[in-house]
């Protein structure tokens, strides 16, 4: 074989190394949750459903619920605010794009701790207007996920000639809402899926902002519970990872089922 592709052996070695990089910490955590004095058992997993310990784990369930709501609101911000804005900039104000891109990528270079310093006074106003519900954190998370969401959506926008497609749709009698929903959105689907997925992942994994603004989310709850029950925190971490994997697979399958390219 004269191709540039690595040999079969090399591919296996790379695969095993990369796999080990991800698998070892997860496997270690898993075995840790199975540890029971000198032997191994499922006692720490069973404890999740132990009514006696329900009060101890309550912060995690509350935090998880809050985080899922936050993930939903953040995804809504990405889909219904960021995406139409990006399409508008692309079609109508292409000269704004460099500035817009700079702004969108900026949050990645600002440490969360610095962001919080700026956000604290803003959240005093938000608390007065909208209350202190955990979901209000989504405004901050909407900014945090900007760089990731922007990149994946922009890649989709650049891959499709949405200018011609929207002009064609309008010439056929479609108004702007129809153009966005029925023509542009379906063709940006892969980018929108990726952006949503990354946003969910970022929100579920965020700790600093929530902790410093005194909101209870999944990650802050894990820290609280870890202080009293390290096993439970590990169990929940594994469950969260499994949830992310399942979500990834489900979204991929859904994407494939509705894609025309999958059909014969």
């Amino acid at each position, binding site marked *: 074989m004269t191709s540039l592709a690595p040999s079969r052996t090399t591919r296996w070695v790379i695969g095993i190394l990369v796999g080990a990089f991800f698998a070892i910490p997860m496997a270690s955590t898993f075995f840790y949750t199975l540890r029971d004095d000198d032997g191994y058992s499922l006692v720490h997993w069973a404890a999740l459903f132990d009514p006696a310990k329900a009060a101890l784990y309550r912060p995690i369930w509350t935090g998880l619920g809050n985080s899922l709501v936050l993930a939903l609101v953040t995804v809504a911000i990405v889909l219904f605010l960021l995406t139409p804005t990006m399409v508008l900039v692309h079609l109508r104000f292409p000269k704004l794009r460099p500035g817009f891109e700079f702004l969108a990528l900026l949050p990645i270079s600002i440490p969360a701790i610095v962001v919080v310093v700026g956000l604290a006074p803003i959240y005093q106003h938000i608390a007065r207007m909208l209350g202190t519900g955990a979901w209000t954190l989504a405004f901050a998370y909407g900014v945090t996920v900007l760089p990731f969401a922007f990149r994946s959506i922009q890649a989709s926008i650049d891959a499709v000639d949405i200018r011609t497609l929207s*002009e064609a749709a*309008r*010439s056929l*009698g*479609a*108004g702007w809402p129809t153009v966005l929903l029925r023509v542009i959105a379906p063709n940006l689907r892969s980018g929108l899926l990726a952006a949503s997925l990354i946003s969910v992942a970022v929100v579920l994994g965020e700790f600093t902002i929530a902790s410093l603004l005194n909101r209870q989310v999944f990650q802050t709850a894990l820290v609280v519970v870890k202080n009293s029950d390290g096993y439970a925190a590990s169990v929940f971490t594994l469950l969260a990872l499994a949830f992310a994997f399942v979500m990834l697979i489900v979204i991929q399958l859904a994407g494939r089922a509705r894609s*025309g390219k999958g059909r014969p």
Partner: protein
Amino acid sequence: MTSPTPVRSLPRTAENSLLADAHSGTRVEFRGVVKDYGSTRVLHGLDLDVAPGEFVSLLGPSGCGKTTALRVLAGLEHANGGAVLLGDTDVSTVPTNRRDIGMVFQSYSLFPHLRVIDNTAFGLRRRKVAKAQAQRRAADALELVGLDHLADRFPHQLSGGQQQRVALARALVTEPRVLLLDEPLSALDAKVRVQLRDEIRRIQLRLGITTVFVTHDQEEALAVSDRIAVMNAGRIEQIGTPEELYLSPATPNVAAFVGLSSIVAGVASGASVLVWGETLPIVGDPVTGEVEVFLRPENLRLVASGGIEAVVQESTFLGSFRRTLVRTTDGALLQVQHPASERVEYDDRVRVAIEPTPVSVR
């Protein structure tokens, strides 16, 4: 020009909803349309009147404003002055989606996520036509362009020519008041281009739909148009039938662009003109005095003796004939068309004579 491969005959009128409803077309009018991009004026008060059912081409080099004019008509660009009329209605302020137009674009514009049949039915669905009826009419439109057998395909499964045919069907299925064609053939290879060009004209005649066709290809415009508007620098230089433009171009630009004509000096006296010592009859009104004479490539030939001396600049083989660009001793460039058997090469010294055929002067 005939197509290299046979094209399916059109279905009988009674069977096809589009043909059954064929009407007499809508009048299209540009009235003093002005368009600026920033401080650059790209349309200088464009006036154009397209009769119902007429096929008019906007022809010109890139940057002449032809595409801008079409986009103003479509409502995709807003004019800075003047008015655009469809029928008797001023549509200048009507948004694109309510202008009732059909448009085919230069780049492939089919919706990638929709099957051919759903692409074609898109305009009908926007007009609240029930799904079953929309699909039936879309199938009729696809039949019109000979692609009804590909209704279930996705755009990426079609060739470029097929995609543009579907785009044509999609534009026609709503029976719009005007069909706008923005260089729809320029992305296709030569053979498909000629085939689709002739088919567009045939369908346009059958449906009687008013059509505005933008192209930079003079051969394309000459082949299909009722009238051609030759544009240059934001203005229409001349508008007329293909024959008028070819035989009596109004300006050197039109002459060069439409007929590949060369321009030489001559002295006219009434109905004839003296060029290079030859007396030629004049096309059109008699004139007297110094004039510019338009010489089309087929007015000129290579001779062994007589005529005038020239040097070959380039020579192109075009099947049964060659077209050769020569420079005369006084510096004029002339296009000469001659049999392919008369082979010449760069820097050859040749002699060029004028056929004693009628010529246009200015």
